């Protein structure tokens, strides 16, 4: 199969500058694919899917009773990002996370940014992720959000924009690592020919970061990943990360607070836990503090946490900064805490609680994407240009009755990538979710991240829960020289 007939249809394409003209760095890949024997690419695609199934690399689907696990559809043609382009993104993400952490720390403590009138108090306190019990907490080193997965999109102008920040329990990094493994297995020659920055050391970096957070005086910290259990949609990832780090995977029932310490129930009695990477929502963590009906939580956990007896990643309450309404203020937040301009722009955002914005949104529903601020996973969205009159009417009603909970953004011409369909390539829209680890001193950005693909033709929704798939993301080395996948590249700045 060849790219000969591939048509980018006027969209920004991640692999081609124009029909048939490869972007710098992508030419080698395209040449290789074009030179493969007939149906060889499909054969490898099928082999890759079979490998994912046999390895049980799946996610859970809640609604579907018969088949509760699905593989995350995977397209074996990788997406390529140039080294120079990546360097900008990396700096931009580091800047953004630093500012957002300063913001979270501030709103739960001094609240300077509110007092200085940069962001309205009612907006912060009405955010869905704002947690009163976190007021006055001081996590080690002032870091609240240790693990971030920021969603980026590239618009028709070729620029990257931040679509949203995921500061609670961002998932998907396991697919990045597994996709890379599958790519190396099914496409060794092409992988070998390109010079790609490694991703495999993510679990070591995650473990280092988690251990750094341990309460002071703990010599060899016991780290655990906390999962809601095997029915959670991201269970595979929880289990994968625990396995890759060689730490315990625990459920709420495995934990208990005993004499002020968080302990695990083991076959030989209770054993202390020092650091918990929790993949469970704030609300379910401690029934004494948050939702009293939580069966998944550990009573007394927050008290142990606030006394510094255990470390939590991410800290509870980080959701205040990934509210879609707060998102609109991130450029100001960056300026306020860092005295810098944002390196990666936000998508222009109309916030419906501002009367002028709200009027504009209501008048232009057919041109805008409207998002409920408290929803995620592609739910609660209106894609104006694709919506029916009745759907627009419905959203208009919803916005008027509760403007605080809606924002709107212009429809972006999301960039596309070629994906393998039955016997030819077709363009599909993509986004990119890089993963960022904020440790004691360093901020590490995993080179690449998860490229999510809208598998339905013309669709702009890439979420796995909405039938999206993924691709391996290759960030090329600057020099073009080969670097072994295992090489350990040190973070320079910060």
């Amino acid at each position: 199969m060849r790219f000969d007939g591939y048509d980018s249809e006027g969209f920004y394409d991640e692999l081609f500058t124009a029909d048939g003209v490869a972007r710098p760095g992508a030419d080698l890949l395209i040449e290789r694919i074009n030179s493969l024997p007939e149906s060889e690419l499909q054969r490898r695609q099928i082999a890759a899917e079979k490998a994912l199934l046999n390895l049980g690399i799946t996610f859970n689907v809640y609604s579907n009773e018969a088949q509760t696990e699905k593989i995350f559809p995977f397209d074996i043609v990788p997406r390529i990002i140039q080294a120079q382009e990546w360097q900008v993104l990396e700096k931009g993400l580091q800047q953004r996370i630093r500012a957002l952490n300063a913001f979270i720390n501030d709103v739960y403590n001094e609240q300077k940014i509110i007092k200085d009138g940069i962001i309205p108090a009612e907006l912060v306190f009405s955010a869905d992720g704002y947690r009163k019990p976190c007021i006055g907490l001081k996590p080690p080193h002032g870091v609240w959000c240790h693990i971030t997965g920021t969603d980026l999109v590239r618009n028709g102008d070729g620029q990257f924009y931040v679509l949203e920040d995921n500061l609670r329990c961002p998932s998907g990094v396991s697919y990045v690592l597994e996709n890379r493994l599958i790519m190396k297995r099914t496409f060794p020659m092409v992988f070998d020919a390109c010079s790609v920055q490694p991703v495999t050391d993510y679990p070591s970096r995650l473990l280092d970061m988690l251990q750094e957070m341990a309460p002071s005086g703990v010599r060899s910290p016991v780290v655990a990943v906390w999962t809601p259990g095997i029915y959670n949609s991201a269970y595979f990832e929880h289990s994968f990360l625990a396995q890759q780090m060689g730490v315990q995977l625990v459920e709420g029932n495995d934990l208990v607070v005993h004499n002020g310490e968080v302990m695990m129930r083991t076959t030989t009695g209770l054993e202390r836990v020092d650091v918990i990477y929790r993949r469970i929502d704030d609300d379910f963590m401690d029934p004494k503090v948050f939702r009293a009906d939580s069966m998944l939580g550990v009573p007394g956990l927050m008290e142990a946490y606030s006394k510094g007896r255990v470390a939590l990643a991410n800290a509870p309450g980080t959701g205040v900064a990934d509210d879609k309404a707060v998102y609109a203020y991130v450029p100001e937040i960056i300026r306020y805490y860092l005295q810098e301009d944002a390196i990666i722009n936000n998508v222009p955002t109309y916030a419906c609680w501002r009367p002028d914005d709200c009027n504009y949104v209501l008048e232009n529903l057919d041109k805008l994407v409207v998002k409920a601020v408290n929803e995620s996973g592609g739910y609660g969205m209106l894609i104006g240009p694709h919506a029916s009159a009745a759907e627009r009417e419905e959203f208009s009603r919803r916005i008027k009755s509760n403007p605080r909970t809606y924002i709107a953004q212009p429809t972006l011409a999301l960039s596309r990538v070629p994906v393998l369909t039955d016997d030819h390539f077709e363009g599909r829209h993509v986004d990119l979710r890089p993963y960022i680890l904020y440790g004691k001193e360093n901020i590490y950005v995993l080179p690449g991240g998860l490229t999510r693909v809208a598998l339905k033709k013309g669709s702009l929704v890439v979420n796995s829960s909405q039938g999206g798939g993924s691709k391996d993301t290759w960030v090329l080395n600057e020099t073009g020289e080969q670097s072994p996948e295992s090489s350990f590249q040190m973070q320079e700045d910060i």
Partner: protein
Amino acid sequence: MLSRVANSIYWLNRYIERAENVARFIDANYHMTLDIPESASNQWQPLINTTGDHELFAELHGHATRENAIEFLAFERDNPNSIYSCVRSARENARSIREYISSEMWEQLNTFYLMMNAAASESAMHIPHHFFVDIMTSSHAFIGITDSTMNHGEGWHFGRLGRMLERADKTSRILDVKYYILLPSVDYVGSPYDNILWAALLRSASAFEMYRKRHGRIDPKKIAEFLLLDRNFPRAIHYCLATAMISLNLITGSQRGTYANRAEQSMGRLLSQFEYSSMKEIFDFGLHEYLDDTQTRLNDIGDEIHDIFFSPKMAGAS
């Protein structure tokens, strides 16, 4: 190790062992019924009785035929002990401790499950002999992969403990049910069917060839002795108990002959009974009574293991 993880690895191994035994029961029975005349061939009801699920079977199917017995034992989703249900439960347990077991173990179990699932969508009657062989082979592969890829530490011992208790239970059930079904045929000792039926019993326990090497000619008393008291045959109850005891001692750190908890005490007692019993005493006591008592005590040991190591209420939790 975490109590929940220990519980899962213990049950994971029990379920795999159970699936393997059910596959062997069906396969051996199927082949036996092909060899004997129709009148003597209603061997499916006793097979259902062997698994202990005869009440559920009667409720779902009534009278046992080859078709519904195989369907029930191999694929019935409502039968928690069907091969299908066992493999699925084993995989669910494995999935919940995937970070703990080796990735090779997980992959083996996952492909085992996918194979099982594919077969379950076909009609039971079209399932060829090699399906049952595949189940047994997959189980053996899982045990082998476990032994060669996992640390032989606490978790491994919990797994082996589960497997040995399950195996001891299944061997006792085969012997208990079949012995009485087959015994009347002792009257016509020497008929070709007699040997076929007894050989089938041995095959249900994968014991035919090893029995031949050990005792030679088919003799019901010797068969009972072989499956109960043999020290070297890996499906003999004595062997299973002795191996389970080693694992339990290594988990608790107790010296052989001493005990640290009730499970260890009960197991030691049962093991020494097997160590110091003769077949004459067992027959005097009554073979059925002896096997029944063994099954009850195995159940009790299972409950005690649960309370001591797996219960979330243990360990002074506040």
